[in-house]
């Protein structure tokens, strides 16, 4: 239960996406990464810009994979950051939008000025860690 596959559906067609939770060097912490899957080569690209007009749905799907993952690995901490600054900002906005709902189920921290702090709206973070309550 560490790799998930889903399909982005939109004007650009169906795009296969892969989400992978990988063990990190810090025990109990897993890195969350996701990207597009090239059907022909099978390679994965976390910098691909799909422009499939479903970024919010894609983000919601990644979060729901996080639910499944932390259901299975209930003590896991999940580390996430965007592949680019603008994507990290997009994730921050996505978390901020649903923070009240998300905090019912998860502890959420953001990395700011080299320190973890409890996630708050309107702050820029360079990375996030979440843990199922």
């Amino acid at each position, binding site marked *: 239960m560490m790799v998930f596959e889903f399909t982005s559906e939109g004007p650009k067609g169906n795009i296969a996406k892969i989400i992978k939770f*990988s063990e990190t060097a810090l025990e109990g912490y897993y890195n969350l990464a996701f990207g597009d899957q090239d059907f022909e080569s099978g390679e994965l690209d976390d910098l691909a810009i799909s422009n499939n007009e479903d970024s919010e749905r894609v983000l919601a799907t990644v979060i729901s994979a996080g639910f499944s993952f932390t259901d299975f690995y209930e003590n896991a901490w999940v580390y996430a*950051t965007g592949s680019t600054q603008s994507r990290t900002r997009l994730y921050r906005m996505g978390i901020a939008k649903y923070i009240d709902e998300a905090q019912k189920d998860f502890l959420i921290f953001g990395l700011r000025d080299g320190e*973890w702090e409890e996630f708050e709206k309107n702050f820029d973070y360079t990375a996030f*860690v979440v843990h199922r309550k």
Partner: protein
Amino acid sequence: MKTIQELNEKKIPIVRIDKSLEKYKSLPVFQEKLDKANKVLLSVGPPKIKNLK
């Protein structure tokens, strides 16, 4: 059988186990991102839970 409403209210998605995805478990996909995560996590460490409001 669950209704659509019940399914939509579930937070945990319905996942189908697909053995073909096992190949990605051992493949070093998204390795660059994992390397960066390791660097950050090892230098910053885990969050301090007692700081929670």
